[in-house]
């Protein structure tokens, strides 16, 4: 099974990895953690250096996922371009079975363009798992996966 985990350069990746770990996976699952740096972002040039936020996020996410799903293969990648387009293209080229990405549940209409999760779920050729992101979760009493790992 081939799975793309799409993360952005915010702390939301932790919630996405937490949700991924809770899902059932065949032992031969190959994960590809992907973050897309959109043109115009300051981080664009920084992706070339080791200290970039995009690089840091995908490596931390990869390490966390590999720790909790040790039998699986985990790759990480930083791409540049339009997030939704890149995700759909990589999914099609790599013939993935599923894309996992976070969503805040924002609505679009004729005036407000579709969000990245909406575009991906509409245009991708594979199944899409949309993890509901909850801003309050990080401050809640329940220990998160990353906190548990740190302990």
């Amino acid at each position, binding site marked *: 099974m081939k799975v793309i985990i799409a993360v952005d350069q915010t702390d939301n990746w932790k919630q996405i990895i937490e949700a991924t770990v809770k899902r059932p996976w065949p032992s031969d699952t190959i994960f590809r953690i992907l973050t897309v740096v959109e043109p115009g972002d300051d981080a664009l040039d920084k992706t070339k250096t080791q200290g970039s936020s995009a690089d840091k996020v995908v490596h931390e996410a990869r390490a966390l996922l590999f720790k909790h799903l040790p039998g699986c293969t985990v790759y990480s990648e930083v791409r540049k371009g339009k997030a939704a387009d890149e995700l759909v293209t990589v999914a099609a080229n790599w013939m993935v079975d599923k894309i996992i990405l976070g969503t805040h549940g924002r609505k679009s209409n004729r005036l407000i363009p579709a969000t990245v999760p909406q575009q991906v779920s509409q245009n991708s050729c594979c199944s899409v798992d*949309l993890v509901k992101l909850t801003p309050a979760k990080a401050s809640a009493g329940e220990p998160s996966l990353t906190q548990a790992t740190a302990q």
Partner: protein
Amino acid sequence: MKVLIAVDDSLCSHEAVSVVANRPWAEGTQFKIVHVVEPIAAQYGLVAPEAVNLMIEAEKKLKAYGVKFTTDIGDYLKEIFGEQQVSSVVIGGYIADSIIELASDWHADVIVVGSHGRTGLDKILLGSVAEKIVNRSHCSVEVIKMKIKKNDDTSSKDDGSTALAKQKQAV
């Protein structure tokens, strides 16, 4: 973990059930199959008073049919995951609203829904339940899409009725 599987009797729903059935879920995972029957009057707008009874009768038949195929799907999943882990329910109401409400009441961790993959005019006219659920759900949503098989003319003509039978044969 609680998994809510929203189904109708379409091929994409049966594909979603098949995908769920083939995953190595953790022990203790609970599954609820839900089918929603929309009020027929809402679909056809204002109608003659004489037609109301016919619509009520039609709704009853649709619910009875819904109970039949959700029970079939439930039986199929019970064979895999166990009697206690699977339940099914048929409810009346608007599809997306009802599914989101049930997911909230049942404290579902994830809603699994098949997608017809409608685009363009089809989507504008018929809408997308999956999209509405994605936009408004309080929990994670997995949209399962049909795998497109080239040189398989039967897939586009199949109304889904044979899919469950094939799944049962596989079990």
